[in-house]
């Protein structure tokens, strides 16, 4: 049985609800542009290949010094990037396009193959060379899809970004990349190629597609209101909507309409539920592991949620200390993973921050509803607020010492002085020419 998402994946661009797209602020027709890109690619490629042939022939006749370099296809002709939120049809449009042009798609999920070697192995063969069969049988042209480009954790030393750039320069086939969000580490890639900003579908379109699917599945019991609710929850994420529909459909047999509520795909709600589940129901390491595996909450944040909400669920000091012992170790390990790319340490991190936190406690689990809160606090080094910054600058005009000294040594004194009386506050603020916001910083304590 195929999941509905696969079952109803559009076979052709014509049967697709096309998302709107923009290139550097201008609306474009995504399907037409992509088609044009693929056609242009092969045109340019043919030209480049022919010229290279001549160059090679030329190079054979002259001494090494006078040889010319072979031409490369310009990067903006070789690859494009689709950027937009998950589930709006980026991958689908690529498959539909390939189907229309009768091409074969070679897909790689960049988040599976994190290292340079793995990526190279998978892609280089297909891009650089043509198999021997290609000369005998007329095979389909290929289209390379690099999905989830933003899932690549790359820096220039180890990452896959240089490999991708290299790949773009050497490719024999058009490359389409998909990405969810702008990543600073990929900026060198963004500069080279054209970027389509793909926008989510409107709710009415989503509902139209959903109704279509329901009709094909022969389901009539779904209310219009429920459909709207689902569409609203997913905010244009069509894949999410279809998944929800299937989920509800499988629960609907029991006539359980409340299933709707639990199927919300809203990510903060999901975290709330997950945190409660983790602290209140999990009893074994395996359960904890299953819970964190199942959720697609970003683990970058999940362990911060655990830290923030820990005292809500664990009350005795000794148990808090035990939990934090493991959590702090998890944080240390996570730091090493991120700094040195020791991805093999990731399992320890998972076990320590989830299971390691809830299992050592000997006190009975808390019962009933507890309020789960956002991780409010991030101690991000020395970042100052805007008001603080301008205050520091004003002080520096009069008293030339470093920012750190002002914050840690001078500002506390200024606060005490200003607190002592209104008159002092006025003297100081007149002297430093403070505005209302900066005064607030001085008064706050």
């Amino acid at each position, binding site marked *: 049985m195929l999941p509905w998402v696969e079952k109803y994946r559009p076979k052709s661009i014509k049967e697709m609800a096309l998302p709107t797209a923009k290139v550097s602020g201008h609306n474009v027709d995504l399907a037409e542009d992509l088609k044009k890109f693929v056609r242009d690619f092969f045109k340019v490629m043919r030209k480049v290949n022919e010229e290279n042939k001549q160059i090679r022939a030329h190079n054979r006749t002259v001494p090494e010094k006078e040889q010319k370099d072979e031409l490369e296809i310009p990067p903006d002709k070789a690859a494009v990037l689709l950027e937009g939120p998950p589930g709006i049809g980026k991958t689908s449009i690529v498959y539909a396009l390939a189907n229309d042009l009768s091409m074969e798609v070679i897909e790689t999920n960049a988040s599976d193959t994190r290292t340079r070697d793995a990526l190279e192995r998978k892609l280089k063969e297909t891009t650089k060379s043509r198999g021997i069969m290609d000369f005998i049988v007329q095979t389909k042209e290929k289209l390379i899809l690099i999905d989830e480009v933003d899932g690549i954790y790359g820096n220039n030393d180890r990452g896959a970004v240089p490999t991708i750039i290299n790949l773009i320069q050497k490719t024999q086939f058009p490359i389409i990349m998909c990405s969810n969000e702008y990543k600073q580490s990929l900026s060198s890639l963004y500069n080279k190629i054209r970027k389509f900003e793909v926008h989510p579908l409107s709710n009415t379109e989503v509902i139209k597609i959903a109704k279509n699917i329901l009709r094909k599945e022969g389901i009539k019991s779904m209310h219009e209101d429920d459909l709207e609710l689902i569409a609203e929850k997913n905010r244009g994420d069509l894949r999410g909507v279809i998944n929800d529909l299937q989920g509800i459909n499988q629960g609907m047999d029991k006539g359980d309409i409340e299933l709707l509520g639990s199927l919300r795909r809203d990510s903060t709600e999901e975290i709330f539920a997950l945190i409660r589940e983790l602290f209140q129901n999990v009893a074994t390491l395996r359960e904890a592991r299953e819970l964190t595996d199942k959720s697609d909450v970003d683990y970058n944040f999940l362990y911060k949620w655990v830290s923030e909400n820990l005292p809500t669920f664990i009350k005795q000091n000794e148990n*808090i200390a035990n939990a934090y012992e493991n959590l*702090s170790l998890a944080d240390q390990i996570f730091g090493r993973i991120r700094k040195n790319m020791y991805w093999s340490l990731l399992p320890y991190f998972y076990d320590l921050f989830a299971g390691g936190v809830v299992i050592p406690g000997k006190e009975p689990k808390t019962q009933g509803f507890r309020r789960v809160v956002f991780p409010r606090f991030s101690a991000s*080094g*020395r970042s100052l607020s805007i008001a603080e910054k301008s205050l520091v600058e004003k002080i520096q005009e009069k*008293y030339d010492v470093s920012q750190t000294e002002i914050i*840690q040594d001078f500002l506390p004194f200024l606060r*005490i002085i200003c607190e002592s009386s209104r008159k002092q506050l006025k003297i100081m603020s007149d*002297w430093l020419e403070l505005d209302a916001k900066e005064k607030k910083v001085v008064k706050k304590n």
Partner: protein
Amino acid sequence: MTEEIPVWRIKYLPKNLEDVCGREKVIKRLKETIKQGNFPHLMFVGSEGIGKTTIAQLFSKEFLGKYYTANFRLVHANIPLTEQERNQAKAGTYISKSKIGSQAGRRITMPAFIKVKIKPFVQLKAFGDAPFKVLIVKNFETLGPNQQGFRRLMETYGSNCRMILITTKISGIIDPIVSRCQLFLISQAEFSSFKKLIEDIAKKESLVLEDNVIDILYKISEGKISRAIDLLQLCSITGKNIDMNSLYENSQKFQKDLTRSLLLVALKGDFNKCRELSRKIISTYKYNSHELFAELLTEVNKLPISKFARCKIIEMVSNADYRALDGMDTDIQVSALLSKLCVLSESL
């Protein structure tokens, strides 16, 4: 007459080397240097907040005379680079492929700090008739491995720019750097000159000091003159007569006591409360984790607790500091330490 400066510590900042309170020996040596018109790289060593930078600044000002502004720069080694500066550093120097040698086609990288903050200054020729430029690097020991980069710099550009390295811990500086510098140990101001300075201020501000007040002030401020002056100003707000009581009362308000109260709250065993307090401290003083743990450590040594407990707490703090070195989230490491302190409180 310029406008009246309401902050005494700025008002009574020494204007030239003679005004510096105490430290006659060092000042004499520096004055001799100015007379000769030449000096090697210098290193100023001394504990926190006793005026190393002030002395270094005044020294370079008097040495360079009217060319001071163009040829002087003060750099803080422990302030992180801004986003813009980091990007600037990323643009590596590219050696053309046409060049001969193994470096051809390579990108040269150098530590961002040196590239952005040091090199542009030392490379350019001294302006005007000044014999050379003067660069002060504060908190030099925090540079860590980047110190290595200074070895060549100090030799290559030594004739163009002399450096004054300022540090609190000479043990944190690698030997090759120390051997390239002339050392100046800057000590605390002696009590006699401290007394003179305070009496002078008291006269100017028409304060009446009781006996012993100066002694106590000297002790409380731990040699940090700016702090002593701060305290004096604070006391003067309530009255021109300053006695022991007002001194003690006002000294209670000072910064370090917030970290102390953090320890005390933790040792009462209320985890939620002390976590809140720790967050407040971090957001107010912008400590990074290491600075906070260092503050805690000094406070632990002052607490009236048993030897056993003190050892235990120091062990915990060191452990937390070590983990925070690798960790991504300061808050988690601080909370971990606090939760352990809360447990410890039950056995005290």
